């Protein structure tokens, strides 16, 4: 039996050799989570902005609910989406279970409250600052929403990154609705769970290191783009 250190070394060698199976798993992880975050932002941002700017009965309660849903356990989401997509469920006829699409759906459910809640907070703060000026310039409450979203874009990007972090790191939802099927629905987190269940702890950890590296890379890329746009603005002075 190899020592743990030897196993880690073997695992990293495998990874650095660019094992094609691993590349497939990484690619699928990125595909699922990036698409999920995109759709979650398309739904969550307008929702959050509406919550921030709107005035209607029950608004307070809705804000509390959205904030609370940030803490939805992924495994519960997975279970709920499974029940919807199962052949015995209401949407079974769509035959989406055990496909990447089902995984995307589950992650959208998981991430939307996060983006909505953080958007609401950002937009609400900006609204407090901008509301009078916008009204003076003749904008309706509805018309101020795109202005606030654009002006808050830096903070909102952080909200999106938070959503992405949640999606790429979760296993509970995607393992139930995806089934962790080899070459079809196996992503980084479910692969780590599988290797752990086989007792291949070193390999599992090595995969974990890859996952963290990817998360760092994504965040670094976004930070770089942010710095570049700020520099462009300054250069025009």
């Amino acid at each position, binding site marked *: 039996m190899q020592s743990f250190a030897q196993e880690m070394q073997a695992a990293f060698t495998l990874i650095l050799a660019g094992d094609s199976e691993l590349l497939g798993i990484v690619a699928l992880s990125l595909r699922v989570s990036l698409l999920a975050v995109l759709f979650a932002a398309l739904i969550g941002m307008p929702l959050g902005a509406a919550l921030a700017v709107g005035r209607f009965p029950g608004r307070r309660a809705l804000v509390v609910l959205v904030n609370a849903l940030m803490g939805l356990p992924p495994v519960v989401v997975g279970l709920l989406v499974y029940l919807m997509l199962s052949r015995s469920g209401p949407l079974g006829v769509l035959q989406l279970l055990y496909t990447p699409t089902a995984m995307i759906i589950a992650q959208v459910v998981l991430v939307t409250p996060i983006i909505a809640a953080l958007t609401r907070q950002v937009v609400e703060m900006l609204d407090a600052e901008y509301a009078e000026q916008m009204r003076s310039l003749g904008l309706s409450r509805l018309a101020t929403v795109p202005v606030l979203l654009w002006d808050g874009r830096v903070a909102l990007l952080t909200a999106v990154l938070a959503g992405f972090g949640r999606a790429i790191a979760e296993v509970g939802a995607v393992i139930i609705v995806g089934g*962790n099927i080899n070459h079809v629905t196996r992503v980084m987190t479910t692969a780590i769970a599988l290797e752990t269940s086989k*007792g291949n702890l070193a390999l599992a950890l090595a995969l974990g290191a890859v996952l963290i590296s990817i998360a760092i890379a994504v965040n670094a890329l976004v930070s770089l783009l942010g710095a570049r746009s700020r520099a462009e603005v300054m250069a025009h002075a």
Partner: protein
Amino acid sequence: MIGSVFRMGALVLGLMAGSLAQAGDFIVVQSTTSTQNSGLLDHILPAFEAETGIEVRVVAVGTGQAIRNAANGDGDVLLVHAKAAEEKFVAEGWGVERFDVMYNDFVLVGPASDPAGVRGGSDIVAALSAIAGAEAPFASRGDDSGTHKAELRHWASAGIDVSAASGGWYRETGSGMGATLNLAAGMGAYALSDRATWIAFGNKGDLVVAVEGDARLFNQYGVILVNPAKHPGVKAEAGQRFIDWLTGDEGQAAIAGYTLDGQQLFFPNAK
């Protein structure tokens, strides 16, 4: 600004195209984590896929979940090792017919220090009595799986009520075989495992085989086609082809041909 919007759009469409493209014929087989983790399926399925062009997508979960999923129609074929539950599945109309496929055996593993003094034995019931008597730590699946049900049968044969000891020397993990073995290795406990998972397991620590060879430790696998009468979406033809192959000469030979560490893990016994 517009240019970057277009680039984003192209990227999104590209990402989605991968999700939408689901080419080719495939069936979904609901099976167990122990079957998957043994490596057997990875070994035999390519032969079936090459011959028939039918992709076999295996969803590996706990036995109870596999049966439940199949009853929900979320699979075409059920392949598990819990005969009583399988027969009930067919009796209730969820499955068409049950066929024997193969068997492997369970082993009792435990710490090399052997606190209950059972190492080297071949009587599982006596061994469990000794473990209970010594109150030596025991890690159970506790998840209603085939393995768990077998374990409970043996405790019952020994006349021991383990629920009373739950949380004490008897630890229920409620998890799969791998997680349970991790726990056993971590706390120096005995555990019942199928031999295949045990051999393939990568974190044995100081665990060794304590008891083996008892005929009562047989682990019979059965395969069932999910009933298309109950779930019209089931791919009955392709599923039946798989079952025929698995129980036929080729599948049975492939099963026998799978070895790990030089040992044959599964013994074909389809009739």
